């Protein structure tokens, strides 16, 4: 079959909250959902589709994964190694631009959500 990356079935977990990781992922095809688990409940944070990435925090800090990522349908995902990524940034810092941009969008999104949540209180 043509196409890059690894295939995941619907419902299959790609990363699990609380695990340590040393790579990030770029969705080639399909869709995933990010869910946070707390007190036995699942909160759906967002869904992501082709060309979007996740798991990038593991590249910058040695903390555990903050959410579980699951395929919502058959999905193909490419792994980006920490070594390759950080080596690339060392050679060419502009490689981090898109990630910084996306992280900034996500912070804005979370801030908006928090503001709405507090308004609702």
């Amino acid at each position: 079959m043509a196409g890059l990356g690894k295939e995941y079935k619907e419902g299959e977990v790609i990363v699990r909250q609380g695990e340590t990781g040393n790579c990030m992922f770029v969705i080639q095809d399909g869709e995933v959902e990010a869910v946070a688990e707390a007190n036995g409940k699942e909160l759906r944070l967002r869904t992501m589709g082709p060309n979007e990435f996740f798991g990038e925090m593991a590249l910058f800090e040695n903390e555990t994964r903050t959410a579980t990522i699951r395929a919502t349908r058959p999905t193909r995902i490419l792994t980006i190694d920490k070594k390759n990524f950080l080596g690339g940034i060392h050679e060419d810092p502009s490689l981090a631009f898109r990630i910084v941009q996306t992280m900034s969008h996500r912070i804005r999104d979370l801030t908006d959500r928090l503001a709405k949540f507090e308004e609702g209180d």
Partner: protein
Amino acid sequence: MRMAEDLGLARDVGRKAQESQAWALQDGSRIAVIGAGPAGSMFSYFFLTMAETIGLDVGVDMYEPRRFCHRGPAGCNHCGGVVSETLIQRLATEGIMLPDSVVQRGIESYTLHMDVGDVEIATPLMEKRIAAIYRGNGPRQSVPLDTHSFDGYLLQLAEQKGARIISRLVTDVRREEDLMSVHCADQHCDQYELVVVASGVNSRLSEMLESQSHNFKRPARTKTFICEFHLGREVIRETFGPSMHVFLLDIPRLEFAALIPKGDYVTLCLLGDDIDDELMERFFSSPEVQNRFPGAIIPEHACHCYPRINIRAAVPAYGDRLVMIGDSGSTRLFKDGIGAAYKTAKAAAKTAVFHGVGAENFERHYAPLCQKINRDNQVGKFVFSVASLVQKARFARRGILHMTANEQKQTVSPRRMSDVLWDLFSGSESYTNVFLRTLHPAYIGSLLKNLVVGNLPGSAGRNAHSSSQENGHVQH
């Protein structure tokens, strides 16, 4: 054209500082990119992306007579079509995802074929991160499918960013007063603030530039061979799998030989010192190669070519308002040429957007990358000369086979030989990195042990006559 004379390498620092503003591109400036192979398209794409982020409005004209939608040599930039693991990851990080119609096959292992046996080296992640692509729209006479040329896809990205495609062959580049002028075969002529030469080594343009400038040396090159075999998807899946097949054979002047499965075809790629009929004859008559094909019969090829490959960089690769990227400038020896095109294209684009288009700007911000590539190629030459010695020494091949096959059977221990071979075949790491890893005492110790064990009577490699398979070989 005075290129080398204009480099300004000996200028004093005060003049540099003073001039840096003069070389900065302004709104309304124009750039010509000659050639829309990977280097030209990626330069245009990154240049226009970066210019947009800082609000710089510059026009980019890309000169390219080739139509990548054509089948056969007319639409093709002739190469093995392997996009390295490193480049796939870098492009994905940049937001460039190769569509399935461009990826003819995802490669997840390398199979090394030697007279002493075969061994398959699998990627540790069991994931397809190497792409087999067509540079054009597939071999001559191939049936039109839903496939897309790699070069065509990159060109489309550049076009979407705002580059203008000019379907003309450039015949001359001249310096005129403070600008550069580009002249085409049909008398078309235009002036630009910067000319980016990305015409590769299979064009007469660099010869023309060399004849006009006594200090400029175009890249040195050598003849290679590529052909396509039509075997059909099913046969390829059964006999080749998602694996690239690499041959380490005792054939003088042959540095690298590989069969790369793609869609309905398998691409053969022979690299070395001036590949000729005699060398090809020896290659095709070796049992290791014949046994790769169904019934050990090598079919007629559907398409073939003898492209040149860059084996030494252009010097210098820049001047005032002029820069050479990809194969026209510096590239990696025999490996990951598309990856080098990406790196040089992006470095030249960053220099032009953020620093300026003078020789000193390129010297400071672009030349270090070229020098790094060139230095690494020196190590690469040494690595290939060691590989040539291994090609001649059967006991060494047995040791390598034994060590790799054992590593492939284990899941946890370090796979030192497998990793070295993987990075060497795939071009994922620099030659320097690969070489330094072979100096590790654990690698040397393990190799010595395997040289002994692999040559003991009764070992698999020892009993092999032709194309036998080590246990590490995974059947598809």
